[in-house]
């Protein structure tokens, strides 16, 4: 099973990953192989089985609504590709 080129484009858009034109057939083939693997799951009837999201089925811990982290924006922003006046810079979004 191979996906169509249109499906690859749709998935790439969902994943926010640019795919080169000539790489698309290879993705179509490989993703198709993975979907064939997924199809094996159909062999088992799971009617009435509760989905298991987490192995220990624990409930999330809650903590008091208090500030626990202190401001370290200078340290963190040192890692950013582009920063100005304490703000992260990205290409213009609003005209």
């Amino acid at each position, binding site marked *: 099973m191979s996906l169509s080129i249109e499906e690859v484009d749709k998935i790439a858009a969902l994943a926010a990953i640019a795919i080169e034109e000539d790489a698309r057939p290879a993705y179509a083939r490989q993703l198709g192989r993975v979907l*064939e693997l997924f199809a094996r799951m159909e062999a088992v009837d799971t009617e009435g089985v509760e*989905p298991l999201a987490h192995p220990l089925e624990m409930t999330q811990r809650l903590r008091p609504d208090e500030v626990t982290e202190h401001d370290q924006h200078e340290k*963190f922003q040192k890692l950013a590709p582009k920063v100005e006046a304490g703000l992260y810079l990205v290409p213009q979004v609003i005209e």
Partner: protein
Amino acid sequence: MHTLSLTQLREKLDAREISSVELTQHYLERIEKLDPELNSFITVTPEVALEMAKMADAAIAEGSAGPLTGIPVAHKDLFTTDGIRTTCASRMLDNFIAPYDAHVVEKIKQAGMPILGKTNMDEFAMGSSNETSYYGPVRNPWDINAVPGGSSGGSAAAVAAGLTPVATGSDTGGSIRQPAGFCGITGIKPTYGLVSRYGMIAYASSFDQGGPMARSAEDAALLLNAMAGFDRRDSTSIDAEIPDYTATLNDDISGLKIGLPKEYFGEGLDEGVARAVQAAVAELEKLGAEIVEVSLPNTELAVPAYYVLAPAEASSNLARYDGVRYGHRCENPKDLKDMYRRSRAEGFGEEVKRRIMVGAYALSAGYYDAYYLKAQKLRRLVRDDFLKAFEQCDVIAGPVAPTVAWNLGEKSDDPVSMYLADLYTIPVNLAGLPGMSVPAGLHNGRPVGLQLVGPYFSEAKLLNVAHRFQQATDWHRQSPELAK
């Protein structure tokens, strides 16, 4: 010196036969000499290591040393290390200097272990051969044409080659156990939630679990003592009493019921691997264990279920790499969307892109029930299989992988055939159980791993069984030529 156990190194350090600085220097020299060929480290940190070794020597001098003080360690490069580059073996994080320590790193620092460096791995821990690393593949110290396994292949190779006494790893679908098996060392993946995920770069959060990789069960127990423990910064960390894992290593295992799942000895298992594992089981029987057959009927469905769930979680976890706050950003983006798409295209390798795309697809409208929900239901069936099996036995034994290490490049063109090679390790992650890999022989000159799986929080029992096995055998003491 690099063939000594942690306990032997402790004795030498305490007796002042050697200082931590000398010991650290010894490993740094071995890395310099042997790692250009093995490529098991992404970053070596001699200054940090020697500075920490000096502090360790001071602690030893003043009598405040703990069991691990002064013994060097290497961290898989997905544990963040404050001030030290943390790449996750990805171009995306090539220049990422972590701003904080992972919980595991913090605890191991407190234990006084000098950090030799950060070990190579599959990119974002996605892979079973260590070939997806942006920094090139790691080679298996037993045979440089073989893969070391993955994703913790660098840690496994470094320990096997005597480049570090012990290392940290992480296991999402087998990433501690399979490379430990391929490199002939001992590794344990603890129960999900025992070791904090804080500062462990996320791949699939409901599976990811850190653990020790070592030369023996005793060494692994010592490092697990330092790694395990509650951490409020990890929302799934377990708040439970942590035992001393070394205290029960020598317990008698007679009467222990060991279950052999028939699905783990069926078609696809290499004969040489089967022979070694059966010989190991016979050894456990000699030690007094009772062998029973058990069944894990949904084993075959674990691989497809895992390859839906883990990529689904990955597609969400890796959405954070957008070129805005840290990580790779493409040149001259024409708008915000272009920046996201091209930064991710350039920053991620092929396997990572594939898994993000698969995950995004599995979660997308129209497919969610057929894939994601179905896989979560299978996850419950796989877990229930184990719970049922543990009504008949105390520990499950079987192979870690169907074959020994394959050759570099052998499976890299066919991702699905590589996925299927994880069929004995993945079910354990779906269930969140502890599992370990113990050296059990050689086949065609390459190591075979025996896998032990226990009920939740049975790490002490697994280490006990492995230790007794290692008292009776010497597979774990065999090392590749370059480690002698």
